[in-house]
C-alpha cells in the first residue's frame, strides 16, 4: 500500500476537523475525494503535506509503510509526496525557472542523488512546459506573481511534472478554471498517470472527473469517509447532492 491513513483525528486551534478518517491507496490508482464545504477536504491535503498548526491527536499516516507524522514538509516532499495548492502562493523576485530548479535539486540532494546538469534540466523543463502551454516568458516571471488563475494551476501541474512524485494530492485544482484551462490541466495530470504513481483528486464537482477519470470515489463528511464507490458514485452525487451524507454522518 502506498498510502495508509488510520483513524486520523486532527484539530486546528482546538477545533476538531477530522474525526477518525481511514483511507488506503494503492500505487497506480486515482482516488477522488468529494464532499461539501467544511467537510475537511483541504485539511486532509494540508495534514498529508505536513503543514504547521494542524495537530494530529490520534491515528497515523503511513507512506510506503513509514509513518510520516514526525517528518517535516520537505522530508515528505523528498519521499515523493506532492500537493497542488488550491491557492498557489506568490514568491516575488524568484523566477519560476529558479524555483523549479532549486526545488528539484533540493529533493535530489535529500535522496542522495546528484544535481541535474543545466542542459538536462532545461530540456526537461521546456518539454514539460510546452505540453502545458507554458511559454518561456512565464518561466522567467516570478513564481505565481501576476499569474492568472489558470496560469497558477498550470504552474502547479508543471511543478508536479518536474518533481515526479509518488503521490500527488490535487486540492480543488479545478476551482477558478475555465473549460479550456481545465482540459489542459486534466491532460497534464493524465499524462503523469502511471502504475507507480497515485493521485488524490479533491473536488466539489463531478465535472473534473469527466476529464480525470478516478478508480475510486470517496465521500467525505464531517471529517470522515462516509461512502466509497466507483466512478459512478460521482455522477450519483451530482444528481442527489451531499445532504443525505451530512445527516448520515451526524
Amino acid at each position, binding site marked *: 500500500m502506498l498510502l495508509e491513513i488510520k483513524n486520523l483525528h486532527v484539530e486546528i486551534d482546538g477545533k476538531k476537523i477530522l474525526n477518525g478518517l481511514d483511507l488506503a491507496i494503492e500505487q497506480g490508482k486515482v482516488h477522488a475525494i468529494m464532499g461539501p464545504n467544511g467537510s475537511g477536504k483541504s485539511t486532509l491535503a494540508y495534514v498529508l*503535506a*505536513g*503543514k*504547521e*498548526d494542524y495537530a494530529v491527536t490520534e491515528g497515523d499516516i503511513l507512506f510506503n509503510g513509514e509513518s510520516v507524522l514526525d517528518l*517535516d*514538509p*520537505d522530508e515528505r*516532499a*523528498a519521499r515523493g509526496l*506532492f*500537493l497542488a*495548492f488550491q491557492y*498557489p*502562493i506568490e*514568491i*516575488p*523576485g*524568484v523566477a519560476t525557472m529558479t*524555483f523549479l530548479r*532549486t*526545488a*528539484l535539486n*533540493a*529533493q535530489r540532494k*535529500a535522496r542522495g542523488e546528484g544535481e541535474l546538469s543545466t542542459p538536462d534540466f532545461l530540456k526537461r523543463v521546456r518539454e514539460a512546459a510546452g505540453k502545458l502551454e507554458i511559454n518561456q516568458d512565464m518561466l522567467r516571471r*516570478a513564481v505565481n506573481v501576476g499569474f492568472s488563475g489558470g496560469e497558477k494551476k498550470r504552474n502547479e501541474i508543471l*511543478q508536479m511534472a518536474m*518533481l515526479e512524485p509518488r503521490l500527488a494530492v490535487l486540492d480543488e485544482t479545478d476551482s477558478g478554471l475555465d473549460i479550456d484551462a481545465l482540459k489542459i490541466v486534466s491532460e497534464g495530470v493524465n499524462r503523469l498517470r502511471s502504475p507507480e504513481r497515485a493521485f488524490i483528486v479533491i473536488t466539489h464537482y463531478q465535472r473534473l472527473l469527466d476529464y480525470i477519470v478516478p478508480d475510486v470515489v470517496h465521500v467525505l463528511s464531517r471529517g470522515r469517509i462516509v461512502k466509497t464507490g466507483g466512478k459512478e458514485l460521482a455522477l450519483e452525487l451530482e444528481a442527489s447532492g451531499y445532504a443525505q451524507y451530512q445527516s448520515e454522518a451526524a
Partner: protein
Amino acid sequence: MPAVQETVEQVRRIDVDQYKYGFETPIESEKAPKGLSEDIVRFISEKKNEPQWMLDWRLDAYRRWLTMREPAWARVSYPKIDFQNIYYYAAPKKFKAPKSLDEVDPEILRTYEKLGIPLREQEILAGVVREDGSTPSKVAVDAVFDSVSVATTFKEELKKAGVIFMPISEALREHPELVRRYIGTVVPVTDNFYATLNSAVFSDGSFVYVPAGVRCPMELSTYFRINEKNTGQFERTLIIADKGSYVSYLEGCTAPQRDENQLHAAVVELITLDDAEIKYSTVQNWYPGDSEGRGGVYNFVTKRGDCRGRNAKISWTQVETGSAITWKYPSCILRGDNSRGEFYSIAISNGHQQVDSGTKMIHLGKNTTSRIISKGIAAGKSQNTYRGLVSAHRKATGARNFTNCDSLLVGDKCGAHTVPYIEARNSSAVFEHEATTSKISADMLFYCRQRGLSAEEATALVVNGFVKDVLQQLPMEFAVEAQKLISISLEGSVG
C-alpha cells in the same frame, strides 16, 4: 514546530557564533603605542614618509577632533568608546613594500586564500580563455591588511591604460599633487566626528585616478580585513574619474572574531568630472558579535561622492550583512547639471546587530536625477533603520528622485524603521517615495518546503527574491558571492 517559530529559533542561534571568517593570522606586527596624541599622528605620518603638508593636514584634523562630540542622533546604542584604548597603527612586522607577490609574507597570502580572494591566481588567470570561449573578467586587487596595503596586482596592465591604482600612502609619495588637489574636497576635515578622526589618523587605503576618456579595463577591488587586536582601522579611499572616464570599484570586508569591539572609521571620497562615471560596490561581512551581542565591529563610515561635472554619474551599491553596529550613509552631491546619483542597498541584520544606514542625495545642479532602492531585512533581535535625505537646492530646476524602501521582518523580536527626510526648495522638483514593511509569511515558507526546500533554504530563497532588484546592480562575481553571503547570514549554517 511552526515554521516561523523555527525560523526564529534558527535566527536566535545564528552565527554570529559560527562566523565563517573568525580566524586570526599569527603575524608579528609593528604597532604604535596605544592611544591618541599629536605624537601618534606624527608617528603615523613619519612611518609613511609623508610630505609636510600631509602631516599639517592631519594635525589640523586632530586638533579639531579634540573639540568635537560623537554624534548621538542615530538609532544605535553602545557603551562609550575609550579612544585612548585603541591602537591607531599596526603594520605587519618587517614590512618593506613588496615588489611582487613573491615578496609577500606567505602567512598573509594564506589568510587571503582562506578569505577566498585568489590574489596569486588573479595574475595567472589573466588572459585565460574558458571552454565556452569567454574570458574570465579581470579584477585587480589592492588588499589592505590592517593598515598597510600588502600587494597590488595588475599594476602593469593598469599602467598601460594610464589608470593609477595604488595604496594612498604610495600615491602621497608618487602623485602628491593629485592627492593634494582632491583629498578632503568631498568630505572636509571638519565634516563629522569620525571623518575628522579618520583625517588625523588614517593609515592606508586605495587611490584611484582614471584619466580623461579612459574606460578602466578591469574591475578594481580592495579587500579590507582587520586582524590585529584592538586596532581601529581607518582607511581612506579616494577615487577620481576624470572627464568622460569610467571605473567600477569593489570593496569587500571581513574581520576575525573577537570578544572586544573593533572600531572602523573609514572615509571614502569619489569625484566624477564631466561625463564620467564611478560605480562603487561594497560587500561587508565584518564580525557582527556573538549570540549574546558581545564583540563585533563598529562600522562608522563616511562615504560621499561628488558629481562635479555635467552628466556625471555616481552609483553606490552595498550589501551589508556584518558589523555589530553600522552607521553609514553613502551619499551623492549632484553638483553638475544633468548629473545622476544612485544608491542600491541590501542591509541584513541578525542577532544583536544594529544598522542605521541610508543615503543622502543632494540636488544642486539643474535636471539632476537620483534613485534610491533600499532593502532592509531584520532578523533575530536586531534593529534595522533606513535613514535618508533627498534635497533640492533653490537652483536645482527639474530635479527628480525616486525612492523605494522595503523592509522585511523575520521573526517578532526585531525592528525595522524608515526615516526619510525630503526637502525641496525648488518648486519644479519631483520627488517620489515608496515604502513597504512586510513579514516573511508562513504560507510562503510552507509552499517552498512542500516543494522540497529545507526551512533554511526556503528563507534564503524568499529573501533573495526580496533583494533581487539590488543584487542585479552588482557585478556578476560579486552578485554570486553576495547571494551566498545572504544565505549564510540568515541560515546559521556555515559554508
